[in-house]
């Protein structure tokens, strides 16, 4: 799966979890860019990412991402 495809799939997950159709994420997107992205929705987001990609993150991993790009790196690493 290529980065672009992963970001598209992630975007759908963001839209569902945040319940905001206007969300459009990029590699550089951070929680500061999305109003609904707080500590509670972050956990939900990660759980949905795990379900969608069939992977597991440690609690430590999910707290260390600084932006969507780092999320994508983790997904690629887990899928390879």
């Amino acid at each position, binding site marked *: 799966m290529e980065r672009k495809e992963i970001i598209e799939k992630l975007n759908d997950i963001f839209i569902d979890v945040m319940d905001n159709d206007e969300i459009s994420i990029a590699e550089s997107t951070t929680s500061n860019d999305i*109003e609904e992205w707080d*500590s*509670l*929705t972050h*956990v939900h987001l990660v*759980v949905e990412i795990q379900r969608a990609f069939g992977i*597991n993150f*440690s*609690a430590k991993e999910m707290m260390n991402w600084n932006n969507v790009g780092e999320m994508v790196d983790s997904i690629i690493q887990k899928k390879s």
Partner: protein
Amino acid sequence: MHFLHEKIRNFKHSFDQNKENRRHQKFEEQAASLFKLCTKKSIIVLSSDCVGGRLMYDYRLPVYTPTVNNWYSDDGFLKICENPIEYFKMPLILNGERDKKGNFIGLLGDIVCHLGHEADPEKALKKWNRGCKQFFRAIKGNYEICVIMNDRNHFNDSFIKRFEALPYKNKVLFTHIPHPEAPHTFYMEGEDSLPYVKTMTLYENIFSTKRRYDRFDFYHWFYNMLNEDI
């Protein structure tokens, strides 16, 4: 004088922050073990006040309910628990009114909802609607509804029967006096002389990292729920 107040406030803030960090270090391992399980099952927590939201934060569990961070009269909360599907389908009406604590008030059918921790009514409504959608999404899969309540908000003894009759296996009602006849109540020792339990989210004392609701073993409660039928 102003300088002194500022200094005290800063000290209190960093003291509280430090305490919160130490608390979360203690939760780290437990949160990690729950997190491993929560892709397989969704735990829907219906909580009568902020305890639900705090627990989700403590244990890093996803929120599948609009009730998080809000509070209700005990009668209203029981009505929601008795029929969450009907109530979460209803529109929440906000007219800009606030309660004494400054929380926005919303009307959900015949229930008054106090929407906590939100300064903007539009955002409070959005959060509520998002919670409802997550609830309906969660109940399409493998899920478990659990209820956390206390006797703080216009409680009377007839509510104990209603609480015990709720169709959920996992429920806990914190009370200021013991109710041995009701198996799902949890007596908060030492509060018999009060009219109801003290705020559940408070720390046990100024130096403790334990909150009052930690007297109940929520970790194993959630752990067992997540492990059932997997």
